[in-house]
Every structure is written in C-alpha cells, then in structure tokens.
C-alpha cells in the first residue's frame, strides 16, 4: 500500500517554482529519504503533504486522504517533526507532551502513562519534570521525536532530524528512527542533506533538485544507475611495473587503467576480475587487494548535481 502518492505537484511562490512536477511514492513500512541541498523544495513538499500549504497544481494522497481538502484527517495520522523544532520553554517536557496529547484529543488520563513511556523510550525520563528551557539541542531533538510519537502516528515526517547534533546524538536519533519502523511499524520519511546518515537508515531515497525528483530508488538501484554499464575496479599490487599496466590495458573488456601510487583504478565493460588477477600473477607481481568500487550516496548525489 502507498502511504504517500503525489502526482505532478507544483508549488509556485510569486512566480518562483519551489516544487516542479513532483511525483512521489512512499510505501507502507519503509524509511524513505528525501535528499536535496538547501532550497531544493524539501520543506515545501513536506508542508504540502501535511496540508499546511496548498499546492498550486497536482494531486496528493497521504494515508488515503487528501491533505489539501481534509488536512485535519491527515494531521491526525501523520506526525511531523519540523526543522528547528521549538517547545514552550517555560513548561516541562512532560507538560509540553501533555499539551500535544490534548491537542490530539487524548485525555490526560490516557496520555499520562503513554507520555512516561515515550520519554523513557527517547531517554528523557529523568528530565521529564524539568523546564525545557534547560535542555540541550540534542535533548530538544529527542523531545521532538517524543512529541511526534505522542499521537501514535502511522506515518512520520522528520525534517532534518539530525542537523546540528553531535555524532553520538545523531546516532541515537537514527537508532530511534529505525526502532520506530521495526517495533511500531511506522512509515517514515526523512528529509535531510546529511547523506551518510540517510544512507545508514533509509530503504529508498529520492533526490530532489530544484523542486524536481531527479532520482528515486533503493541505494543499490541508484548505485547501479550511477555506474552505468561501466564498472570500476580497484587493485592494490605490491611492486607495480609499467609492464603490468600495459599488459592490463590490452586485456579483453578493460577500457582504461589509471595508476595511483600502489593502486590501479581500472574501468571495464564487463566483469574481468579473474583475468586481472591472472594478469598480475603473470608478470610476477603480488596481488594485495582487488575490489569493485561501490558508489556511496555521495557519489550518486554529486553526479546529479554536477551533471
């Protein structure tokens, strides 16, 4: 089942197109990463999904409901953690969450245990009764996660949940996000520009560039797409001799050999790992390492923004 289904979304602000013909599909139970540099339309897309802003054109369905026509029904099911989330800083963590519960029409009696449980889950149980004003950035972000969980949503949208947080805090938050999907079965959409973090947790990613989705798919799919038909191998050899390079260059399937210190980078049209290994032995050199170069999200990302 599709949790989000957007077709040809357009959002124009005074003539500037923030979102252009966006097509987006998010499946139930997945962690979807929406990637893009600042100003690429991530937040605008999120606001449209929540019904906080109206699209200029296009159709959206979130959890089977139309956020433009029925924002309340969507907001009942969708949890949203905005970028730079803020709390009422003279209230305690507990009181802030209770307020959210009340806004969701959850009675204090029912929300009480749930709030304690959630604060425990995000590791804020000890400071539950402290004014939020005293919280650090990382604690605020965790409280933001707790805030989203309070209404027990089926779909969660997180906007830059790890921005401005130290690596340890970021790891904790990413673990929480994975836990939310695995234990509570939530579908999660993560908007971020921090690639390695997205790479760690997301099942599928979509890359947004100037309001358009330029690529979408799992990391493997995108990686294969980036590599195209060519493959790149990295070979580490003890004692590289010019003879070896020229030998490799004439191997069947190899299109280019590049020498970088004790490494060789070989571009090839088919899988030639076996042939290369033999060629190295033939010239009497010692093969230390032979691996296919895999593409990180960063490579994929850069490809779209450079080309």
């Amino acid at each position, binding site marked *: 089942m599709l949790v989000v289904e957007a077709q040809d979304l357009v959002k124009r602000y005074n003539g500037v197109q923030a979102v252009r013909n966006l097509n987006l599909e998010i499946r139930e139970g997945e962690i979807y990463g929406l990637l893009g540099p600042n100003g690429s339309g991530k937040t605008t897309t999120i606001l449209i999904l929540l019904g906080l802003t109206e699209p200029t054109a296009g159709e959206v369905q979130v959890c089977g409901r139309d956020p433009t026509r029925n924002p309340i029904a969507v907001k009942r099911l969708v949890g949203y953690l905005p970028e*730079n989330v803020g709390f009422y800083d003279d209230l305690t963590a507990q009181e802030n969450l209770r307020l959210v519960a009340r806004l969701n029409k959850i009675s204090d009696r029912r929300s009480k245990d749930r709030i304690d449980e959630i604060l425990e889950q995000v590791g804020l149980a000890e400071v539950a009764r402290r004014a939020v004003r005293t919280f650090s950035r990382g604690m605020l972000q965790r409280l933001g996660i707790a805030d989203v969980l309070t209404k027990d949503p089926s779909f969660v949208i997180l906007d830059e949940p790890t921005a401005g947080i130290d690596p340890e805090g970021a790891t904790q938050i990413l673990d929480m996000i994975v836990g939310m999907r695995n234990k509570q079965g939530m579908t999660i959409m993560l908007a971020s520009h921090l690639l390695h973090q997205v790479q760690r947790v997301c099942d599928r990613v979509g890359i947004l560039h100037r309001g358009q989705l330029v690529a979408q798919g799992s990391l493997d799919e995108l990686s294969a797409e980036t590599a195209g038909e060519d493959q790149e191998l990295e070979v580490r050899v003890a004692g590289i001799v010019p003879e070896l390079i020229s030998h490799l260059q004439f191997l069947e399937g190899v299109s280019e050999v590049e020498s970088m210190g004790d490494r060789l980078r070989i571009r090839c049209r088919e899988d030639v790992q076996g042939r290369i290994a033999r060629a190295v032995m033939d010239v009497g050199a010692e093969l230390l390492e032979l691996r296919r170069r895999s593409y990180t999200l960063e490579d994929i990302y850069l490809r779209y923004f450079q080309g």
Partner: protein
Amino acid sequence: MNVVFWKELADHFGSKRFIIFFFLILIVAGASVYLAGQALRENPEGTGSFVFLKLFTSSSGGLPSFFSFIAFFGPLIGVLLGFDAVNREFNRGTVSRVLAQPIYRHSWINGKFLAGLAALGLALAGIILIIFGLGLFALGFAPDGGELSRMAAFFVIGLIYLGFWLSLGILFSIVFRQAASSALTSIALWLFFTLFLYMIAGLIADQVAPVRLDSAPEVWTHHEHIRDLILRFSPVALFEEATSAVLIPSYRGLGVAELLTQAQVPTNPLPLGQSFLIVWPQLVGLIALTSICFAISYIIFMRREIRST
C-alpha cells in the same frame, strides 16, 4: 480551541508582565478612587444622587478619575497581552509543531484572542470589584441597583475597549516578525490616540472653523463638531464618551450644543437605556474597530506560510 484557550490563559496569569501591570493599575486606580472618596466625604452636600458612581468619575487631588485611568492605561495592558502572541511562536519554532496537530488554524488564533480577552476581563472585573470594596469602606453605604447595573455596563464597555487593544496587539504580532517592532508600533499607536490625536483634532478644527472668545455660538458649535468628528476615529475618545454616558447619569453628550441646552434643561438623571441610546454610535464604533482589527489579523494569519525558519 479549548486546549489553546486554557493554555494561553494559564500563560497570561503566570506571566510576570501581566501581574506587574495588574498591580500597577490597581494601585493607581485605587489611589484615585481613595482621593475621590475623601473629597466626597468632606463635601457631601454637592453630591446629589449616584454617589457611588462619582467614585469612578470624579477626580481630585491632582489625580485623574478612575475611568480616565482605564482609558489611558487600559491600552497598555491590552497590547501587552497581544503584541507577541503570534510572532513569539514563530520565533521559537513552536508554530509548525502545534499546527501539525489536528486543529484548525482559526481555532488557534481564536483561542489566543479569547484567552487574552478572558484574562483582561478577569483583571478588569478584579480591579472594579476591589475599587467597589474600597468604595464601600470609604463611603459607608452600598450602591443601589441602578448604580450596580451602570457599573456592569462600564465593565462591558471597558472589556470591548481593552479587546480592541488586544486585537491590535495580535494584529501587529502577526504583521511583524520581531516582538520588539510589534511592541513599539503598538505603543506608537497608543500615544497617537491618547495624546496626539487630541492636539491634531484641535488644530484642524481651529483651521477649518477659527473661533474667538466672542464668536457666535454657531461657530463654536461648528468648531466643536469638527473636533469631535476627528476625535471619534480614536477608540480612546469613543471609550471616554461611552463611559461618561454610562457612569454619569445626567450626561447628555459632549458637544457644545448639548452644553448650551443643558443650561436651560434640568439635568435629571437618565435611565440606563436612555444613556445607552446617547452613546450607541460610540459603542458600535468600538465594537467595529475591535472586529476590524481582529478580522485583518485573522485573514493575514490564515494566508501566512507556516515555516519554522
């Protein structure tokens, strides 16, 4: 809306500035009523009927009367509750979090306005009741039904008046991103209405219909008419006229025409209904100003983009 209302109300009563202003007005108003009461006790002959109401309207010992204090300071407390109502939430980043909850946008802004109004109402009622008690103590007798109903009417008019300033504050809190600019603009407007407009009205009236001491009554009437016309754009003037009529039963109106005829007509107190008739236009004007202010804030807010950054 309920949830927003109670949260905002709790915030108001917990906020230091509200408490400070409440006591400031209470002390000043108390002093003015106390002095008025003393003057009344020393000179009981000239008082006539509705003695209790005189506590609110007579000035003595250099202090202005209670209701002119409300006319002057009321705006400050109204603006105080409103000027950062919305931009504070934007600056703190709470607005997108709250509006992502299943509530309508208008119930959020309505809740804020009503909570402010309720806080003002409770404060005003508190001040009036304390003054009332002080009056009982100072004068030694209780007000009659007529006086009570006129005080209730005063409360309602006062609340509408404070509501205007509250909605003005909220309007500026939506228009301006910075709480400081919103506060300064509100205060500028307050000074304009309480001080400058009176001067400007006088100046314009002098220009349009110049008068000398020996001018004919018609010229004087024309002069005053123009002055009133300009003044009635100000909620402060509207409030002063409306409360004068309600608190001074023999009040027939402000203009020179009324003053001139008053010399010939016996100034018997009017029934409350008749007093209301005199100031009905002023009351409607006050309510209209409040509604317009709130409607503008409402429209701007409904169209405002909700972003935390």
